């Protein structure tokens, strides 16, 4: 009897479909987080182009990478700044 009640009330959160969906969501975050070196290089070049307009950066030491943890994926960039460009009057 308790089992039946439990089933009725817990169906929405604990249904195996929801478990599947959640597990799939997490696994795909990681599967999709692989980026080809070519694409990463293009991204790096574009980043440099944009940032250079505002900051003087050490282009050789610039590091860009995708980092995973359990719940999320982050684009982590380490960009050493040599100096600020003089502000252009607007």
């Amino acid at each position, binding site marked *: 009897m308790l089992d039946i009640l439990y089933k009725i009330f817990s*169906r929405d959160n604990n249904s*195996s*479909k929801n478990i*599947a969906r959640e597990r799939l969501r997490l*696994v795909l975050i990681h*599967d999709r987080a692989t980026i080809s070196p070519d694409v990463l290089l293009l991204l790096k070049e574009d980043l440099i182009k944009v940032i250079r307009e505002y900051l003087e950066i050490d282009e050789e030491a610039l590091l860009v990478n995708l980092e995973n943890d359990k719940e999320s994926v982050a684009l982590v960039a380490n960009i050493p700044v040599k100096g600020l460009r003089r502000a252009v009057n607007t």
Partner: protein
Amino acid sequence: MKSKVLVITSGKGGVGKTTTTANLGTALAMMGKSVVMVDTDIGLRNLDVVLGLENRIVFDIVDIVNGSCKLRQALIKDKRFDSLFLLPAAQTKDKNAVTPHQMKNLTNELRKDFDFILVDCPAGIEQGFRNAIAGADNAIVVATPEISSVRDADRIVGLLEAAGLHDSRLIINRLRSRMVKNGDMMDVDDIIDILSINLLGVVPEDESIVISTNRGEPAVMETASRAGAAYKKIARRLTGEEVPLFTLDDERILDKFRRLLKIAR
């Protein structure tokens, strides 16, 4: 009509690529289209047995690309429909006997004679997959409502996009409405939401598929088959017709109707 080359793919094995190819090909032929189905699963050919044409094979796809025979000699005409043809895979030759470039030439050659060229892709993401997608205009991705299958489908969609095939469409196969209703199977919306590609159709789990495969007669020829009816709808969509999607409610009504009929009997 401009001919279309469609590759039927999935990543994971056993989700129904070959069954889907056989049924869509047959359904399109029943609609009067000229269709050729190309089996690219070299070493593990199966489209021939699903169609009941296994005894008619003389030449295969490798013979054609090697130039050992003419295209027409390798094409097998279906027993039932005059406008339906099969180009079988080789069973005993090397898996890498065909290259993507050769596949592209082959599909271009087939375009001259057929409205639809359906390419049945092998499971996996290696050379066989590369070959199968080489000449395709669009891809049809088949997935069942299981984590493993949806995950592989996601990977395939990514690989298809990297290869320049952008508007892939999804067939969700073997959906069990009762399990969905009880919250024990992912629903169409869940899967579409996760994969974010367009839905081409939904095919219900149906025992008639096993029976029709046993006989070598695609389920679309069986009027009572629910899976067959779903494939027929998908085939109409492929010709550009707007056909409403199969929904769970439809099926519930059908079930009730069936039950009523049983009582009446």
